[in-house]
């Protein structure tokens, strides 16, 4: 399997495209900065949001039960799923019971995480994603590359091509407005004919048993209001204690995500309409395990705004697909190893630990520290290579003995002069696109010995 480094190398073969990807996402980071700077209380909001999440995670069991009892009282059917398989089975059983073989879905990263679409399709149920970005990657048969902007890796010309093939737009048509209109018309008939709508959840309020879904396109509302059955899937960490907490989270979410003051729609769903069935599926899928890992617990505070991706200098230059996990970028790199350490062992190393992610995170997750911690955990669990292990052992031995270190350094520097080809070759990844530093005549310690030794 190709790892993050190898996939990034492939992504970097087209430098112009990397520039375009980097600039597009940087532009969103700048919009976020502008929006944040409009609120003098921004840092206070972040701190409050972080504390509320901290409190909620510390009392998660209680809040989940409170939410369940309120939701039941509101007439919602509540299901619990321990993992992705159970989640998918629950969805299928609801559909089967009602004889439904086609559904419309608004954006839900959880269902991506559970690979619901593939599961339903293999069971004869057609799924249409109604979020424009999600629809595009669905037509392209690709996973989303970003949690908020699923098709950010695609240029408008490529989307035009895709729509030409699937939705019959004119060949070469790349005007975003025309393309959006084509998708809208296509989705309209879907909305009108689907009897079941599946949505994600942004916030679940324990106090009232209601859920809040934030979209810019209103597609969640369209789907739900026209369907007989509403299935909402949520990770158990989506709980917030009180309705008033939304005043903090909604202000942070859209500003962090896109720089908007608020998403166009913040829709509250509390009780099913007359004749409608409403189901909530509360999914664990590794979350309680992460909650049990003290150093990584905070990662469950995430409200999926995507700001850490937009600011990440690595993500911008490697693309979302290089992470090979539904949630890419910095936050994905600390969530993925929890689910599968072996498969995602590369991700915590796909970072310079620059810390920009931690600074933009609206719930103040210490992402870069957790990346560092994951590295220790992965190496301790043996998820590293023999070469790396030996290299590190040799280095640590050198560093334990100053005389040895001094001698090795001197030897190394002379070798660089006498036999430069030992360093300046294709096997040295430093040298591939960078010159080696010029080795000086003497090291500082040698200079010091000669110049200042009388002092010590």
């Amino acid at each position, binding site marked *: 399997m190709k790892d*993050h*480094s190898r996939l990034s190398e492939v*992504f*970097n073969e087209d*430098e112009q495209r990397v520039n375009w990807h*980097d600039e597009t996402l940087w532009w969103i980071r700048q919009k976020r*900065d502008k929006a944040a700077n409009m609120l*003098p209380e*921004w*840092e206070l909001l972040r701190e409050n949001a972080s504390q509320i999440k901290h409190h909620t995670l510390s009392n998660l069991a209680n809040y989940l039960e409170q939410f369940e009892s309120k939701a039941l009282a509101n007439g919602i059917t509540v299901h619990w799923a321990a993992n992705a398989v159970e989640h998918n089975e629950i969805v299928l059983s609801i559909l089967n019971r009602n004889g439904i073989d086609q559904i419309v879905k608004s954006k839900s990263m959880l269902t991506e995480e559970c690979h619901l679409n593939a599961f339903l399709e293999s069971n004869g149920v057609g799924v249409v994603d109604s979020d424009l970005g999600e629809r595009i990657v669905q037509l392209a048969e690709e996973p989303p590359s970003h949690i908020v902007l699923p098709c950010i890796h695609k240029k408008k010309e490529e989307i035009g091509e895709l729509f030409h093939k699937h939705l019959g737009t004119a060949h070469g048509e790349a005007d975003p407005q025309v393309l959006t209109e084509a998708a809208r018309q296509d989705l309209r008939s879907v909305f009108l004919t689907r009897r079941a709508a599946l949505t994600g959840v942004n916030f679940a309020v324990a106090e009232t048993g209601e859920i809040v879904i934030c979209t810019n396109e209103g597609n969640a509302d369209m789907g739900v209001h026209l369907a007989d059955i509403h299935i909402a899937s949520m990770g158990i960490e989506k709980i917030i204690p009180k309705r008033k907490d939304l005043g903090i989270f909604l202000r942070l979410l859209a500003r962090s995500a896109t720089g908007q003051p608020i998403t166009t729609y913040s829709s509250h769903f509390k009780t099913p309409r007359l004749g409608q069935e409403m189901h909530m599926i509360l999914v664990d899928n590794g979350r309680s395990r992460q909650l049990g890992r003290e150093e990584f617990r905070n990662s469950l505070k995430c409200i999926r705004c995507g700001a850490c991706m937009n*600011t990440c*200098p*690595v993500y911008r*230059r490697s693309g979302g697909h290089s992470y090979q996990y539904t949630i890419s970028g910095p936050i994905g790199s600390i969530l993925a190893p929890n689910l599968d350490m072996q498969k995602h062992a590369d991700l915590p*190393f796909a*970072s*310079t*630990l*620059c*810390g*920009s992610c*931690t*600074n933009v995170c609206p719930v103040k997750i210490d992402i870069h520290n957790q990346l*560092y911690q994951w*590295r*220790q*955990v*992965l*190496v*301790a669990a043996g998820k*590293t290579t023999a070469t790396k*292990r030996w290299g*590190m*052992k040799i*280095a*640590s*031995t050198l*560093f*334990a003995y*100053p005389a040895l*270190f001094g001698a090795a*350094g001197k030897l190394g*520097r002379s070798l660089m002069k006498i036999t430069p080809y030992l360093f300046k070759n294709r096997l040295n*990844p*430093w040298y*591939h*696109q*960078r*010159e080696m*530093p010029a080795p*000086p005549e003497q*090291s*500082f*310690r*040698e*200079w010091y*010995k000669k110049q*200042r030794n009388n*002092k*010590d």
Partner: protein
Amino acid sequence: MMTVGLFVPCYVDQFYPKAAIATLELLEKFNVKVSFPAKQTCCGQPMANSGFSHLTQASDELFTEGFAEFDYIVCPSGSCVLHLKDHLHSVKHPQKAEEIRSKIYELVEFLVDILQVQDLKARFPHKVGVHQSCHGLRGLKLAQMTELVAPGFSKPVHLLNMVDDLEIISLSRKDECCGFGGTFCVTEEAVSVKMGKDRVADHVLNGAEYITGVDLSCLMHMEGILKRQGSMVQIIHIAEILNAN
């Protein structure tokens, strides 16, 4: 007289002795007694950041023994200082290690916060771009970070402003990472180099003759790229500018 133990990180010792000499001379100008304990090598960060923090024991003990006696420890590298502040542990002398963690300073923060330098006799008649190394910036908080909604400041710029005839150029991205990242620079070569190229381009396009900063690791990476491009723009550690006459 205040005593300072000078810690010169492994790669600075081997490849950039001029920066270490400048650090030493600069500190001596401010009437502190500086010594360079011979028993020092590396802060342990290369191992720890690669996931091998359990292998830093020996270098941690060495460091603790070598530096415990000083009033302060000063080092011309933000990254190494941050690592020691966060992670230095000693089994033999736990108390001493803990003390070191609170009395170790990166050069710029030592000059600004402890020595409270108001005046420098230095001259550097060039256009200079300041690279904000991430560990110095977001770890040691040497300057305000662009992500935060908070008043601006910059300790390196505060000092550079005292240098005669020096012109600081402005950048389009003030504090983006250069992509060095320790072993990242070889394990993720493609992205590391691309980040470096982009960072360098920002300085070059804005007219820098020199790129300076508090961390030679970042500067070494950018130097490698500049040289490969055949650029005339040079890198220089901030100590060399502050010590320039």
